[in-house]
């Protein structure tokens, strides 16, 4: 049985501190390749940079189950060199520009330190304070004379992984929590299924890696493993927060519907039944917007029954996100149990 201990937390730390902005996932890909080496029957890196690992089971009538976790994270690309180590930049993936001023970043292959500053408050006119600082006014500053980076290089938040009480604070928990969980599943692949693990690229810019990975694997069904935005903060006026997606501490979030996918009810039911039977805490993600790799996978080929399972997380796509270790542990436990107990006839009944 895979579980989360110090080894897994150290791996997660390494994964979170690595830089893998969409389109440049090499650092995380290398960690993945190292970690699954010797555990899969076949490992390949495809045309887009996805890591596709297969582990064949041994029983009869095995289902081909694809699991997908995306390696990429949101970040930045240097766009223009203004001299003296100052660069204009663009965001890669969905980032609220209000999250950027006053942050430190790492830039390029060498992780050179840089900062995104802001005009000193003393020089800001009072009525300007209520407006957000637009991206046009922000720069990445590496210090005068920097010649080691150039337009086209990637950058991301410099936040370092840390633990506090029951929580993790780190950048890119979306979706390094999923990547680390999927590594554990490859290392503990159940024998009753063929496990097809896709560590995908470019999820944050349109689920592009998952689309081709699903085509290549041609699975019977798929589960996307991600970290969903919890949005479980208090509302400003003290009213009930009815807009939350998930709540931290209540266990893995099973998706019924998100912005890109109506999950296959048979898979939802199997996950819920497994959680109930194994007494693993779980929650149903509030149906609504957002999405995961399942959005691309379920419409691939002649259609692939799909579902997503997420570790609840707060503040995805910002400098620092927060998740509970217990939720991560339960997500891994639920996935492993659901795979191990997956009956070959799971999809023989007609979809409702």
């Amino acid at each position, binding site marked *: 049985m895979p579980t989360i201990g110090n080894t897994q937390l150290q791996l997660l730390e390494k994964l979170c501190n690595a830089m893998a902005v969409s389109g440049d996932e090499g650092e995380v890909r290398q960690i993945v390749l190292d970690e699954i080496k010797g555990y899969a029957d076949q490992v390949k890196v495809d045309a887009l940079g996805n890591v596709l690992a297969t582990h064949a089971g041994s029983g009869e009538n095995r289902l081909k189950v694809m699991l997908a976790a995306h390696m990429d994270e949101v970040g930045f690309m240097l766009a223009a060199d203004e001299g003296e180590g100052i660069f204009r930049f663009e965001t890669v993936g969905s980032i609220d520009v209000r999250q950027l001023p*006053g942050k430190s970043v790492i830039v390029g292959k060498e992780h050179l330190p840089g900062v995104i500053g802001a005009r*000193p408050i003393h020089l800001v006119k009072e009525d300007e304070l209520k*407006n957000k*600082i637009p991206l046009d006014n922000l720069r990445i*500053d590496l210090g005068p004379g920097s010649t080691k980076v150039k337009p086209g290089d990637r950058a991301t938040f410099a936040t370092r992984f840390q633990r*506090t009480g*029951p929580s993790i604070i780190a950048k890119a928990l979306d979706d390094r929590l999923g990547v680390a969980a999927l590594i554990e599943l490859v290392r503990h692949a159940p024998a009753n299924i063929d496990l097809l693990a896709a560590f995908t690229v470019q999820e944050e810019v349109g689920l592009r890696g998952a689309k081709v990975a699903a085509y290549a694997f041609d699975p019977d069904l798929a589960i996307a493993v991600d970290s969903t935005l919890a949005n479980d*903060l*208090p509302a400003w006026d003290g009213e009930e927060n009815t807009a939350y997606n998930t709540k931290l501490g209540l266990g893995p979030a099973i998706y019924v519907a998100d912005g890109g996918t109506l999950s296959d009810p048979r898979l939802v039911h199997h996950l819920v039944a497994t959680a109930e039977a194994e007494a693993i805490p779980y929650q149903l993600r509030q149906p609504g917007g957002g999405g995961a790799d399942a959005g691309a996978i379920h419409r691939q080929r002649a259609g692939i029954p799909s579902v997503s399972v997420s570790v609840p997380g707060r503040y995805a796509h910002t400098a620092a996100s927060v998740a509970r270790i217990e939720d991560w542990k339960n997500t891994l436990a639920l996935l492993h149990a659901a795979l191990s107990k997956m009956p070959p006839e799971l999809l023989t009944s007609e979809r409702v």
Partner: protein
Amino acid sequence: MSDILPFLKELLYAPGLSGYEAPVAKIIAEKWRPLVHKLNRSRLGSLHGLRRGTAAEPRPSLLVAAHMDAIGLMVTGITEGGFLRLTAIGSVDARVLPGQPVTVHGREGLPGIVVQPSTRLLPPEIGNNSVPLEHLLVDVGLPPRKVNKLIHIGDPISFTQPPLELTGETLAGYTVDNRASVAALTVCLEELQNRPHTWDVWVVATVQEETGWIGAYSSSYQLRPQIAIVLDTTWAKGPGANDWNTFPLGKGPTITWGPNIHPALYKAFKELAERLEIPHAVEITPLHTGTDAFATQVTAEGIPSIALGIPIRYMHTPVEVVAVKDIQRAGRLIAEFIAGLHPDFMAKVTWDY
């Protein structure tokens, strides 16, 4: 000249919000103790170091001051779910706060993040605009029961951004305003170890500058120097700041000029910088300098004052950027001024400017 960078980095790691300066004061005291003849803390917590001069008694004395306090946040409430509500200590632009790593100084130091609730959890009129401080929260990642036990209303919150060495011998970090100046005063003290000076020199790290120059008023009253030299940071040119009141990064300190400045001191510093070929700029301050010199000038019967500035980028954000060279230059300029000061310098000043 000694390498001041390691000490500056140590200063940048130390908390020390206005009114809560003890952690940084301790580090400065350790560094200054061997460099001065006497060292103590004032009733409000400012650090006073004395280097005795060589002139006959009664010796004139000067004060050279840099504030050691820093801007930050403070807990104003704890929500049902264990999130913290906030107010600012000093002047903080709430727009640099979302996603900012912080340390909450509760019963123990707790890591946390300033967070911006999603649009749907905020008043509808905010929409896509900046979110005011009253609607931002801190998440310390702990269950509410623990939060209530460890954190109280009124606990100070500092930014956790560690110092970063950038290219071109520049350093980015939180509290560069005004720890860069504390480092420069340390350079000055080191210079003075081998330079006799006639005047007594009070080297002072003041408290509560960001909340109203409180340390400068009280320390200059207590020490009653004949001259006050204040070192603070000023605005460097860079993204978002390129007007006449900004100065190039790494091209030397500024010498301020305006009603807050005694003309004799301006003239002496300007001539000295030119004679020694220390790069510098003249900073025009038509009203006041916004520094501790604003306080020292009107303390007791009035103290001739001047402010010098170290240009930094992104002032009052957790990623302020300073050029180490400018720190060395500011420290040296002040040391040279002190070493060249005749006992009757102020006595000879006439109002013919």
